[in-house]
Structures are given as structure tokens and as C-alpha cells.
């Protein structure tokens, strides 16, 4: 494969987007087809480029002008994350109706996200990631101006933080290219900047951040696209941080802090989910919860943790397709998707969480305590999922953008994929080997079982029969009586503090200078004084400058 082909996965969605803009003026269906074809083309291109070689491929096209070369790289990590971004986006672009403007912006956003993952250096990732974030915000605004969306400043700040990290690497390490940065340049401040970019750029927040609020929008077309393109990028950055640090973060305490943050994110999501008053509110907390577990697993610092994180990222991608397609009424589709996301055995989410928590316990010490909190959080999430089954629907959505059958099938697949955990484990381990040593993983058992330091999980032998028996038994079982459905249920525990936090925020928003002090601080008078061309101000500032430099 010539290296130039690495441009294809970026170029195809780009072309799709431009075609969508051109064709959309005549027929919105054509624009939808063009955008989705571009995204699917990118997915096919990624696999087609990687499969024949099955090793890292690079393309360098010289300097861009801001100290960063136009260097693209497709290794297994990039392949996994690109597919995690592209496949859900392509599915949603195909299945959900959109205006031509939305299709165009969405396709461009997909191209930017793939570019961020394929970029060979931190600065290029920052530029592409910020582009993806900007396009996501624009898409959300185009869909509905008044609906909740992420703060633009927060996203911009996050990607600027990554750009600054790249700049620091350039200044102190001579380069910001992932594969060339000296380990000594990967310091705590650089990691902190990368972590800030990941946490705020992807909305990994313990409180109700944008990743949750997005799902309160009347329509979930743009929200689904925003989540599928932005959320994986944060985890991607933290995976690359391992590569920059030669398989570890600058200090082990950073692993602890990040893992604790991940559990907090998952706990926050689970706590809000168990207090949800509608099924829509519950849905809003599903992906943040999964992301929190992925973050915790990733931060453990072992190859097993990283593998678990990658499996959870893949699971999140499947759930991210299901949620926007799910109608708000109850029924088997909701039940299946909720079960798949909650990690009911033998689902893939179950396997991923199991491996991540296992990695935490095997790390021991404080990380073991974090794992303990993780198990408790998992059970809380399960309780919330169970409670959600009986919740009333939310404020409704256009039926045209929901496909319950597809959601049900995908949810079912996510549950039935448990016995294939070994396969996912090997794929994820291959990806993990790009950024850290995976010698301790014991890949000898193939796809049949998963070996960790202290135990061996016979995924096929244990989960296979369980799945079969379960399927047969459930087929014969008596369904849930309709009377048990859709009744308002009290939360398992009240969320104290959220009201207070909202009140504080409202207070800050409404903060104003007290009337009796207004005369001291009058912005209009200040503006008049500054812009009024008053020689006295000019003279005073001149004297001040002279004093400042000559004292």
C-alpha cells in the first residue's frame, strides 16, 4: 500500500460532506447518502489499508509552518479508535434523516475526528480534534439553537491545552511526534495538560457535564454524532500518553488520580441514573458511565487495564449507535440496550468491566481500593438500569429518527458477544502492544480464554453455555406483566447537593454589583473614558509606561 493511501480515510468523509452540500440543495436524501457513503468509505478504507500490512504505516508530507509536520500514522491503536469513531457515525448518518446542512457538517466532523486519530503528532491531533469539536458544536446549533450543547469555550480550552502540551514537548523535547518524543520530555505538567484536554474535551466529568446534557435535546441526531466523534478522542489521548511515556505515565500517582477520577465519573453517572425521572434521563447517563469505567481501566497502568479500556471503548461505540435509535417507550429494545450497557453477564460490557476491575485488584494497594469502588459503582449502575425499565418515557422524539429493531438487534449482539471476549481481548492486546509491553498478558490461549495475572477466565467454555442456556430459558419464560411497567419510581437515594450546586451556579450567573456601588464600577462610563479620545488618559498612560520602564 502506498503511504499516500493514509489520506483516503480522511478524504472520503470530506468529499462526502462536500457532495452532501452540493446535492443537498436539490434533494436532502442524496446529501444523506453522500455523507454516509463517505463515512462508510472511510471505514472500509481503514480496514483495507491496515489488513494487508497489519503493522504501522506512516506518511510524512513536510512541515506545515507551526513546527509540526503533516505526518499521518495508522497503527493498531489508530485503527481501533478510527473505527470506533467512523462506524457508529456512518451508521447514524445512514439511518437517521438529516437536513443537508447537518449531513455536511457531520461528515466534515467525522473527517476531522479520523484526522485527529491518524495524526502522527500532538499538534496535528490538537488541530484536528478542535476542528471536530467546533463542527460538533455547529451541528448541534444547526439542529436546535435552544437545546443544550457543550460550552464552546470549554471545548476550545481543552484542545488548546493539548496544543500547549504539544508545544511544551516541542520546546523541551524537540518534537511533538508521538513516536519520536523523548521519554524525559513527558513530564507531569505535559501529562496534566493532556489529561485536562481528554477530560474536558470528551466530557468525562463526575457532575452532569455536556456528555449527559446532550441527551436532553428534543432530537438526538446531532447529539449522537457529537458523542460518537468526540468521546473516544479523550481516551485516545490518554492511550497515546502511554506511548509518549514509553508505556507509563510520568508518575504512578497520576495513574491513581486518573483512575479515581474515572470511578468518580462512573459513580456520578450511576447516581444520576438511579435518580432519573424518565427513561430519557437514564439514557443520558449510560455512555458517561461506560466512559468512566473505560477511563478507570485505562488509568490502572497495566496492559490488562488498557486492553479492558479498549474493549469498553468498543462497547461504548455499539451503545452509542443504539441510544439515538431507541424510542423512549419501554419494551424489549430498551430492556436489551439497558442490559447490554449495564454489563449483564455474558455481555461484552460485562467482560470489559470484569477485566478492568480485575486489573485494578491485581495492581493492588490503592488501586485495589479504587477497584473496590468500581465494583460498587457497577452494582449501582445495575440498580439504576433495573429501575429504568419501569420509568415513564421522556418528552418524546420524532419517530422518523428512531429504529427500535436496529437498536434491539445491536443490544442483543452486545450481550451475545460475551463469549467472543477472547477475540476482543486479542485484538485489543495487539493494539495495546503499540503503546506498552503486553508480555504479561498471556495470549497463548487464543480466543478460548482470557488469562490475567491471578486468574483465567474461560470465556467460551463458561459464557458460551451460559448464553445458550439463558437464551433457551428466556425464550420459554413468561414475559414481564405489563402492570409492572411505566410507573413513577422514587430514586434509590436522593442526590443531595445538585440543587445547591444549581443554586450556586444561578447565583454566580445573576451576580451583579450592588446598587450602592454601581457608581464606582460603571462599565459604560469606563468604555466612554477609554474610547472617548481623552488626552488626559493618554498622558497618564504615557507617564505610567515611562515610569514602569525607567524605574
Amino acid at each position, binding site marked *: 500500500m502506498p503511504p499516500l493511501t493514509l489520506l483516503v480515510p480522511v478524504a472520503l468523509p470530506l468529499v462526502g460532506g462536500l457532495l452532501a452540500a452540493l446535492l443537498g440543495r436539490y434533494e436532502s436524501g442524496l446529501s444523506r447518502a453522500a455523507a454516509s457513503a463517505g463515512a462508510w468509505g472511510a471505514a472500509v478504507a481503514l480496514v483495507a489499508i491496515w489488513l494487508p500490512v497489519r503493522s504501522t504505516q506512516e506518511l510524512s508530507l513536510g*512541515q*506545515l*509552518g*507551526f*513546527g509540526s509536520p503533516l505526518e499521518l500514522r495508522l497503527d493498531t491503536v489508530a485503527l481501533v479508535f478510527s473505527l470506533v469513531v467512523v462506524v457508529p457515525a456512518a451508521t447514524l448518518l445512514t439511518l437517521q434523516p438529516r437536513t443537508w*446542512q447537518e449531513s455536511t*457538517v457531520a461528515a466534515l466532523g467525522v473527517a*476531522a475526528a479520523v484526522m485527529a486519530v491518524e495524526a502522527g503528532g500532538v*499538534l496535528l491531533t*490538537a*488541530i*484536528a*480534534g*478542535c*476542528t471536530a469539536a*467546533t463542527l460538533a*458544536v*455547529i451541528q448541534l*446549533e*444547526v439542529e436546535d*439553537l435552544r437545546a443544550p450543547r457543550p460550552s*464552546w*469555550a470549554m471545548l*476550545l*480550552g481543552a*484542545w*488548546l*491545552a493539548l*496544543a*500547549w502540551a*504539544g*508545544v*511544551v514537548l*516541542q*520546546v523541551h523535547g524537540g518534537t511533538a511526534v508521538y513516536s519520536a518524543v523523548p521519554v524525559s520530555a513527558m513530564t507531569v505538567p505535559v501529562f496534566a495538560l493532556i489529561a485536562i484536554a481528554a477530560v474536558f474535551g470528551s466530557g468525562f466529568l463526575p457532575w452532569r457535564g455536556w456528555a449527559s446534557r446532550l441527551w436532553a435535546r428534543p432530537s438526538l441526531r446531532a447529539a449522537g454524532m457529537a458523542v460518537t466523534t468526540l468521546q473516544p478522542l479523550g481516551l485516545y489521548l490518554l492511550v497515546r500518553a502511554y506511548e509518549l511515556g514509553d508505556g507509563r505515565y510520568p508518575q504512578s500517582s497520576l495513574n491513581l488520580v486518573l483512575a479515581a477520577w474515572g470511578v468518580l465519573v462512573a459513580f456520578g453517572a450511576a447516581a444520576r441514573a438511579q435518580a432519573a425521572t424518565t427513561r430519557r434521563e437514564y439514557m443520558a447517563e449510560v455512555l458517561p458511565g461506560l466512559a468512566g469505567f473505560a477511563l478507570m481501566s485505562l488509568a490502572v497502568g497495566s496492559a490488562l487495564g488498557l486492553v479492558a479500556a479498549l474493549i469498553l471503548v468498543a462497547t461504548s461505540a455499539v451503545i452509542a449507535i443504539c441510544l439515538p435509535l431507541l424510542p423512549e417507550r419501554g419494551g424489549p429494545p430498551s430492556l436489551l440496550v439497558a442490559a447490554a450497557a449495564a454489563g449483564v453477564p455474558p455481555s461484552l460490557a460485562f467482560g470489559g468491566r470484569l477485566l478492568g476491575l480485575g486489573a485494578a485488584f491485581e495492581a493492588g494497594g490503592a488501586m485495589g481500593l479504587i477497584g473496590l469502588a468500581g465494583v460498587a459503582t457497577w452494582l449501582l449502575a445495575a440498580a439504576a438500569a433495573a429501575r429504568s425499565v419501569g420509568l415513564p418515557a421522556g418528552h418524546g422524539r420524532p419517530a422518523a429518527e428512531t429504529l427500535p429493531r436496529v437498536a434491539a438487534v445491536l443490544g442483543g449482539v452486545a450481550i451475545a458477544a460475551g463469549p467472543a471476549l477472547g477475540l476482543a481481548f486479542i485484538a485489543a492486546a495487539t493494539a495495546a502492544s503499540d503503546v506498552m509491553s503486553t508480555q504479561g498478558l498471556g495470549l497463548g490461549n487464543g480466543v478460548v480464554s482470557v488469562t490475567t495475572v491471578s486468574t483465567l477466565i474461560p470465556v467460551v467454555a463458561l459464557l458460551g453455555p451460559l448464553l445458550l442456556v439463558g437464551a433457551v430459558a428466556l425464550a420459554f419464560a413468561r414475559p414481564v406483566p405489563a402492570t409492572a411497567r411505566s410507573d413513577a419510581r422514587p430514586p434509590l437515594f436522593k442526590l443531595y447537593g445538585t440543587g445547591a450546586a444549581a443554586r450556586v451556579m444561578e447565583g454566580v450567573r445573576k451576580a451583579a454589583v450592588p446598587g450602592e456601588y454601581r457608581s464606582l464600577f460603571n*462599565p459604560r462610563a469606563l*468604555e466612554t473614558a*477609554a*474610547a*472617548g*479620545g481623552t*488626552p488626559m*488618559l*493618554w498622558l497618564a*498612560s*504615557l507617564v505610567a*509606561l*515611562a515610569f*514602569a*520602564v*525607567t524605574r
Partner: protein
Amino acid sequence: MEPELAVALPAAGAACATALRPRPRLALGLGALLGAGGLAAVVLSSPGAASDLLGITLSLSAPARSMLIVAALALAFVVVLAPQNAARSSLLRWGLAGLAGMAAIAVAPTLDVSVMVLLALVVLQAAGPGRRPYARRVRAPALAVVLLGLGLLFARMPGPPALERLGAVGLVAGLVAALGALPYMHEFDPEELTATSPIPWIAFVGPVVAVVVLTRARDLLPAAIGAMGAMLIGLGLLNIVWGCVASWRTELGAAAWRYSFISDWGLALCGFGLGLTEGWAGALLILFSILIGRLPLYLWSRQPLRDKIQTDRPINLVVAAALAGSAPFAGFTARILLLRGATALYWPLALVLAATLLLWVPSSLRLGRSLGMPKGRQLAGIMVTLALNVALGLYPQPLLSLAGL
């Protein structure tokens, strides 16, 4: 021969356009032809090479040359895609006069001559028709000339180092006054013609003046470069904060645009103040984006501002992103370069800079909306502006090479 032609041809174009005012089409054609000739002369001139044809040694530095080329392109762009109701010949007339003055400032043998030409521009611009009396319009730009002149005198006086520092104060304060940035803001009347308002100083002539003054000051004040950099950074941060907040909160739309220019200049001043190649590259990128981005967008926003039309269509949001310095537009790349320079110099400065970079967002959303519902030529113009901005953001190397960086 090129430096002389770079001044003479646009000047002749401006003169023709003025003389042929009763016949706008002819004025436009002839002016455009001569202006294109001037641009060709600038493009063909080799940076740094001196020409002594008129007994005065004229030469064009690489950064000033690049700035002149971009300014000329911006003028052509603005004239070609001017809003329907704008008098193109008038735009071209003022633009060519400004371009001739900018070329003269750039090619002048000494900074004294550049300052004199600046005074000539000040006098000519203020002499145009306007709502405010002449003396009020000439006041602030004239202050710039006075301060630059005093700065030059102090810089050349033999004596203690304090004198050189006072020279630096004069040059920096004079430059800021020439731009009309804080604390030497020019009086602004939203209803005034753009050509006779303070906007040309901050958005058209300013970039060349800044490049010339700061390039020459480096040779003139070798011992006071540190003080000069500190002043530029201080004033830059002041302008960033004031410009962003005022652009967001001020009542008048046109004033909001004016403050947004000021905030961009704040960034540019910080970049120049860093004194490193990255800082200069970042500052020049900001200035390029002002010339080919913010200035045309401001001109296209004038009519919707008068009609009080505000919309939130996709194009408005994309424009807002470009104005906010978000990727993939030039602003983001410029900010990366500035952060790099600041990190190399003193990292807490980079922290302050990074914190202030978020202030652009709210005002940019407001400015984006103020473009109304662009149609026809205006829409095409905005599209081209955005495309140029993206190109500059993703691949700034060609323009930076043109500027000798």
C-alpha cells in the same frame, strides 16, 4: 525600480480614481489597473535589495513585503466582492491611497521618513468627509506621530540607558496610538464612512506600520529590546482582555467589531513582544487573518448592522468559529505559535495567554450573528474568506516563508 513603482503606481491609481470620480467605471478600471501594477511591483521586488534610483535608498523588508502583498490582495478582494450598495470606486480610491502610503512607509530609508509618511496619511484621511470635525479626527493619529517622533529623538540621544528606554516607550506608545488600541483608542462613530473612521488604521494600515516600526526599532534600540518586549506584552494582554470583554458586552454592533480588532491586535502585540521567531510568526499570522478575514467580514456586516438583522444560520456559526480562533482557522495556528514562543520564553506567560484565549468565544458568536443572512456576492465573499482562513490555518508555511520566517 520596484520599490519606487510600488509607491508610485497605487498613488497614481488613487489620483486617477479621484480625478475620474464623475465616471466611476473608468475610475475603477484605471485604478484597478494601476493598483495591480503596484502589487506586481511589490511581488517582483526582492526583499532587502536596495534601490537608489531617486537618490534615496529604498528597500523592502520581507515581513513588510508580505504584509503589503496580503493587504493588496485584501483590498482587491474587498473591492471585487463589495456589497451591492457600496461605492466600489470610492473603496478603491481610499484603498489605493492607503496602499501607496503603506508602501512608502515600508520602503522608506529611515524610520523618520516612515513616520513623516504616516503623518501625511493621517492628514489626508482626516481631510476626507466625515461627521466629526477635522481636529477631533486628526488628534489621536497625530498623537502617534508625536510619540514616534519623540521616541526617535530619545533613541538617538547620547546619555544614560534611561533615554533609550524612553525611546522605547515613545515607539511602543506611538505604535499603539497609530493603531488606535488601548490606551490610545481613536474616537469611533459607528455611522461614519469606514474609510474615514479609525478602522483603516487598525485593520489596514496598522499591520504594515507595526512591522516597519518594530523591525527598525530592533536596530535602533538594541539595549532596550527587553523593555520594549515587556511593554508590548503588557499592552497586548490589556488589549486582549479589554477588547474581548468590550466586544462581547458593548451595545453597538459596529463598536463590537472595532473592539474585536483591538483584541486581535492584543495577541499580535504579545507575539511581537516575545521577540522570538515563533512570536513574530504568530503575530504575522494574526495580522494576515485580520487583513483577509476580519476586515472583509466587518465590511460585509455593516449593512446588516444598520438593518439590525441577526441570524444563527450555519454560515454565521462558521464565521463565529473563524473569529474565535478555533481550528482549523488561522487563529488557532497563530495561537499555537504564540503559546510556543511564550513557553520558550517564560511558561507562566503562556499560562496567562492560554487563559485569555478563551475570551474570544462569546464576542465571536455575537459578531458571527451580526452578518445577517448573507446572499449572492456577500455569501461568496464570506465563503472565500473562510476558505482562505482555513488554508492559512492548516498550511501557513508559504506566507511565513514570504515573510522571511
